[in-house]
């Protein structure tokens, strides 16, 4: 029977190392199956977070051969099996144990974003063309792979100054909502630090839901920040229109 070597990170807190496990390959196997095989037969204390095994819960995020991916959506036969398959926890977040990391920082960022606030007296009626954009953002499963791969968080550790791609997607889903009346553009610039993003598109590359994070969320939000803070003509236009409305 064909076999594969799984090089899985083992450890907790601030210590750990990769350990090799050999597992039998079966047709259609995904990386999460291989990890479960290790857990069932060789390392019952292996910590791994998972739930749906269908690419919808966003729990089994890890770094497979160095690339942030959902283990349940990564087929073993898509990987080079002549060498060990390296599986590591998400690098951006503190390690709890083995492949489980503490992603609670994300929930704290989420609390900074004002929720949906309908415009006063708004008619509760929406056309499909108005919600097409935000529906894309609602596909997010909060796997936090985009947060993990974003170099602003991963390498520069800007967790105090930067919200990360996931929360630009969430902010975009609110800002572009046809019935919402809140202005989150100052928050984007100051609290969520959208200016730190240098649009290298890694978040888009790793998104398992194939959300066009950079093109459809981050760049449009950056342009809204430009409207409000950096474009003198847009400011003048708003003043003129404001005067007219008054």
């Amino acid at each position, binding site marked *: 029977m064909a076999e594969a070597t799984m090089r899985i990170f083992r450890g907790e807190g601030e210590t750990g190392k990769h350990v090799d496990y050999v597992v039998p390959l079966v047709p259609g196997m995904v990386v999460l199956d291989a990890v479960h095989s290790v857990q069932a037969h060789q390392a019952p204390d292996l910590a791994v977070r998972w739930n749906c095994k269908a690419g919808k819960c966003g729990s089994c995020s890890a770094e497979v051969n160095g690339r942030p991916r959902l283990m349940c959506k990564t087929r073993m036969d898509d990987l080079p099996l002549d060498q060990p398959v390296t599986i590591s926890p998400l690098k951006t977040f503190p390690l709890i144990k083995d492949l489980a990391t503490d992603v609670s920082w994300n929930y704290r960022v989420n609390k900074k974003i004002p929720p949906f606030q309908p415009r006063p007296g708004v008619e509760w009626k929406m056309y499909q063309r108005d919600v097409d954009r935000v529906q894309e953002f609602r596909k997010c499963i909060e796997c936090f792979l985009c947060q993990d791969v974003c170099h602003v968080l991963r390498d520069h550790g800007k967790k105090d100054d930067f919200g990360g791609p996931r929360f630009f997607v969430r902010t975009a889903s609110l800002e572009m909502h*046809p019935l919402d009346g809140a202005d989150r553009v100052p928050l984007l610039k100051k609290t969520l630090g959208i200016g730190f993003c240098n649009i290298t598109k890694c978040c888009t590359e790793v998104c398992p839901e194939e959300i066009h994070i950079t093109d459809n969320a981050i760049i449009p939000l950056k342009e809204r920040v430009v409207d409000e803070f950096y474009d003198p003509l847009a400011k003048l236009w708003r003043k003129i229109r404001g005067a007219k409305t008054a």
Partner: protein
Amino acid sequence: MAQTATPTPNSIASMPEMRRPRTERHDAWWLENWPFVIVFSIFAVYATWRAVWPHEATLYWSDPYLSPFYSPLIDPQHHWLPRLISPAILILWGPLGFRMTCYYYRKAYYRGYFADPAACAVSEKGHKRYCGETSFPFILQNVHRYFFYVAVFFLVVLWYDAIRAFFFPNGVGLGVGTVIMLVNVVLLTGYTFGCHAWRHLTGGGLDCFSCTASAQARHKLWQGVTRLNEHHMFWAWVSMISVGLTDLYIRLLAAGMLKDIRLL
């Protein structure tokens, strides 16, 4: 099934070993940026040579073709322009600024030239203080939409040049140069009007596409721009290569190293 190592307390590494390598990626991630770095560097060196080398300033025109590097043509006889300054220098800041602040090029050169990051999930070395686009000089990327306005002006001029390329000294015709100039300006149009800033200005800044008649019209325009924008990288590449080759073709004609073929 065999376990080749057992994680016992004795085998668990301490802090120094906990430091992960620069990347655990197995693929050739370092190759990703080379196509951009090579092609863009060649283009940058060629464009600089064409713009600053004094002899090159005489090789911009071969009737009825005008090099895109020199269009609009400003004081080619140097009546007021100092001899040391080529007319191309007065032109190239516009298209250059548009490309350097373009969202696609930003991604490409941050990765390719600044290794910030070199590739996804590859750690950066030596970048102690990271400011992204929050401080000088990269905060200037926010003027992209102004360079878009400038680029539209240049585009109008290049369309004029492309149409003028049908009018030979002996009458209306079609040469290889005409086709090259036409293809070039079509590619530049695809690149310019697929711009993210333009996409925002057409309708991206709206929250409701159905609320007013003008918003509905802008939504249609936005959809068109979005279709172009989805392939912005493609347009960025082909238009950069085409503008360089168009200039090279006209330069070779002007230098007498090549003869234009009349098709009609």
